[in-house]
């Protein structure tokens, strides 16, 4: 133990002594230079402590060796290792056979793959990764790819530094891409605002007014805070104040848009959850407490599909939609044929029976899949966000789910309004006896309708698997909300469900910033209760005698 300790400490001591020595040496600049070639510097990486890493990384980045950017990138990504035996630095990438493919750092040569036990990682932490990102940005400013350059300028905008600004001054004339040049000029204008003469400052402000980048606003605020009380009437103060006012206005506007988007996104989740219920509860009049579990089954179907086709994650959701529809739909038909049809006209018993079914289904997945949450992976096209401007971006997963919800809604509308099945469903729901007299098989229609409602709940489950945890209790979280939406929108009315879901979602999201998610929920609930008191049949009550 002691020996190992000594072995570990000794090189460190030696190194620090060495660096002390070179420090002294360079200060009088007469004796031998420390070996600061790229190869010598990176050879220090395996033995350098995390707390001493930052200056070493700086020194490496200052080298002109062509391998520098690649090295820093790999270090940031955590792919830089060294071989325990030889201390040779390598880039390691895990391959299919549970071992690691190696590339030598110095000459780029391929080495024989090894297991993890032969390797040791060069450790980094947040601060060092941040530092590397800054350093890389300065290098990337002159990269070939436009998107890399764009990213580098953005990075520089958030963390301005002297070298970066100097490179931008040099590179801006050569820059071909308009939007990058624009952002580069913003970097320079901010610099001008901070360090320029008065006239330059005012010129910079007038050019910066109307920009949306938070960095611009921060620079302006910093400038205005520097001014003393006496200067409040100066031209500079007015210009700054003006510009900040404009930025705040823009900020408020985009915040409004953002809340609207969040509201619509929550609304679309509610719509997906409730739309199946509109059919089973609204059209058939069955209080189906197992509706949430149909969604859960849909979510688990997605999980099973991802597990069965691990190489097709990108398409798994598209495959899961029909599969979930079929699985949940069949279970729905089974429930209708096995239980609900015997309880026709006895709502209380239906409620209790379906509640029992929901418990059975929960326990079933608990037994099959374990009580722990299952992880459904998000395909690449659903991660990240669409940046419209620096203040306003839409996350892809929410965006797709809004579109998906609307798609499901309109297909269902089409089925009910235009197909013969829809005609039969509507006929049975409006007047069962008359429909039967016209030779519609009402029992068959009931089963299919219930299957349709359940199948759509299954589809909703596919979408939910991207937003929340897939576990046995998934359905429970949505069942109350679904009933609320259906009742609020008017039982049996599809358009009512759409309007109700979107209204509730938007309302909730506008209230949330003020009062937190819990209170916002309560307020919405109380509001709903009051509304139902006034209009017991919801927003858009079904016309006709049949619903009584």
């Amino acid at each position, binding site marked *: 133990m002691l020996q190992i300790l000594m072995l570990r400490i000794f090189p460190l001591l030696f190194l620090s002594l060495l660096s002390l020595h070179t420090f002294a040496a360079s200060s009088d600049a007469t004796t031998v230079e420390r070996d600061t070639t790229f190869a010598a510097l990176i050879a220090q990486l395996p033995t350098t402590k995390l707390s001493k890493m930052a200056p070493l990384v700086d020194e490496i980045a200052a080298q002109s060796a062509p391998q520098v950017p690649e090295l820093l990138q790999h270090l940031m990504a955590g792919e830089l290792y060294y071989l325990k035996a030889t201390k040779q630095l390598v880039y390691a990438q895990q391959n299919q056979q549970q071992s690691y493919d190696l590339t030598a750092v110095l000459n780029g040569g391929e080495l024989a793959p090894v297991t993890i036990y032969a390797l040791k990682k060069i450790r980094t932490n947040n601060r060092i990764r941040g530092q590397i990102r800054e350093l890389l940005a300065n290098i990337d400013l002159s990269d070939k790819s436009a998107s890399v350059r764009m990213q580098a300028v953005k990075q520089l905008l958030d963390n301005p530094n002297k070298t970066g600004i100097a490179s931008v001054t040099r590179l801006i004339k050569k820059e071909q891409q308009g939007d990058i040049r624009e952002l580069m000029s913003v970097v320079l204008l901010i610099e001008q605002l901070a360090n320029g003469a008065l006239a330059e400052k005012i010129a910079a402000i007038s050019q910066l007014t109307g920009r949306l980048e*938070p*960095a611009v606003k921060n620079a302006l605020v910093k400038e205005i805070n520097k001014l003393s009380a006496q200067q409040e009437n100066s031209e500079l103060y007015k210009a700054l104040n003006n510009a900040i006012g404009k930025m705040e206005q823009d900020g408020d506007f985009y915040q409004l848009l953002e809340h609207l988007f969040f509201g619509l996104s929550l609304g679309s989740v509610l719509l997906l959850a409730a739309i199946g219920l509109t059919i089973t509860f609204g059209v058939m009049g069955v209080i189906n407490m197992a509706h949430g579990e149909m969604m859960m089954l849909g979510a688990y179907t997605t999980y099973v599909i991802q597990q069965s086709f691990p190489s097709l994650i990108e398409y798994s959701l598209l495959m899961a939609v029909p599969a979930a529809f079929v699985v949940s739909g069949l279970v729905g038909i089974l429930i209708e044929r096995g239980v609900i049809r015997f309880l026709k006209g006895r709502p209380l018993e239906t409620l209790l029976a379906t509640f029992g079914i929901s418990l059975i289904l929960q326990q079933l997945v608990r037994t099959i899949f374990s009580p722990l949450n299952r992880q459904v992976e998000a395909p690449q096209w659903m991660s990240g966000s669409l940046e419209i401007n620096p203040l306003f971006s839409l996350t892809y997963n929410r965006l797709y789910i809004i579109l998906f919800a609307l798609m499901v809604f309109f297909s269902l509308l089409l089925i009910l309004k235009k197909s013969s099945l829809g005609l039969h469903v509507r006929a049975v729901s409006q007047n069962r006896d008359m429909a039967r007299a016209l030779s519609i098989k009402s029992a068959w229609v009931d089963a299919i309708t219930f299957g349709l409602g359940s199948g759509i709940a299954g589809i909703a489950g596919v979408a939910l698997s991207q937003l929340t945890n897939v576990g046995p209790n998934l359905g429970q979280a949505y069942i109350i909300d679904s009933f609320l939406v259906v009742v609020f929108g008017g039982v049996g009315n599809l358009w009512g469900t759409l309007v109700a879901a979107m209204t509730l979602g938007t309302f909730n999201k506008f209230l949330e910033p003020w009062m937190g*998610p819990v209170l916002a929920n309560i307020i919405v609930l109380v509001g709903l209760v009051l509304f139902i008191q006034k209009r017991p049949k919801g927003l858009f009550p079904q016309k006709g005698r049949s619903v009584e």
Partner: protein
Amino acid sequence: MKFKKLIVASSIVATGLMTNLTYAAENIKVGVLHSLSGTMAISETTLKDTVLMMIADQNAQGGLLGKKLEAVVVDPASNWPLFAEKGRELLAKDKVDVIFGSWTSVSRKSVLPVLEELNGLMFYPVQYEGEESSKNVFYTGAAPNQQAIPAVDYLMNDIGAERWVLLGTDYVYPRTTNKILEAYLLAKGVKAEDIMVNYTPFGHSDWQNIVADVKKFGSTGKKTAVVSTINGDANIPFYKELGNQGISAEDIPVMAFSVGEEELSGFDTTPLVGHLAAWNYFQSVRTEENDKFITSWKKFIGNDKRVTNDPMEATYIGFKMWVKAVEKAGTTDVNAVEQAMIGIAVPNLTGGIAVMNSNHHLSKPVLIGEIQANGQFEVVWSTPDTVIGDAWSDFLPSSKDLISDWTAPVSCGNFNIKTAKCSGQ
């Protein structure tokens, strides 16, 4: 003839039974009060298994005081009042000598009056909000000054955070912890407008607004950090939303107090890499004791993929300490063991020695780790020495004058140093 045989047989059976009975009466009974069903089962079942493993281990070494240890396992089913009921059952009916149990603070508060009434002894192995010290409980998890305060210090000094977002699940532990942290930050000169506090219900999954707010709060040019006391599975959608809105650990690091190896196991942690957690134990720390513990745990549970975590270490330390205290006292009598416990030292799994202090809290090291792509943590900072657990926070006005000392002459869990009286709080 037949009759004779019968007598012989029955007498053999009877003596067998009798020895069995006497044997059973001489066993030392260890109560295990962890939920084995309901929402907390995921976390607590692991601790039940840890206690069982420790008991098997102790018995293999010849038991305790020449007797065998015997586990009495009950299931309070994540139902808080049931903790009191099952606790009473363990103490009154099964007459256990010690209880290892509880996870959530609300369950501990539920069983506490029963422990005090029947003079039981319980070891509580989870990090908690402090503001409590009972004669009948030993707290082997972290108090706020052993987890929250050092974590904030790290963010402040090493990361350079100036603006703070305190996110938590809406119940007693996050609320009390955040109250302490807020007072601490204000005392450190952080302005009130640089602190944002937000609470969400258990299982919250729609994080759009909150993450957007955090992003906006963090875009003023000052380094911003999130301190998260979010509990349970709400963490997964939270971290996902962070990733989707493009917030990386370098921009706004999240320091979590309730996310450990167990919570991360089986999940793809790539989007979480670089975010932080503060604990007193990480599985990734390589010491001889820890390697031994991990190996025996995997062997006991029969699964090579199982991980170890902080509350397991706290259970391990608590059990080892209780064994030592019983050996020292020479009896399992609660009062004797309670006094013998104070000053007992046991090696930590991560190196160093844990000592039980007179306030029934441990001295432990504090570690801060960054989440790795394999679901483990890499230690990026640790306290140079162990930290003494403080039952009553110095940063809350209501508790700053209180101390806990269960040795004579004070013998009080909430002694007010100003009035020199047991405050009875």
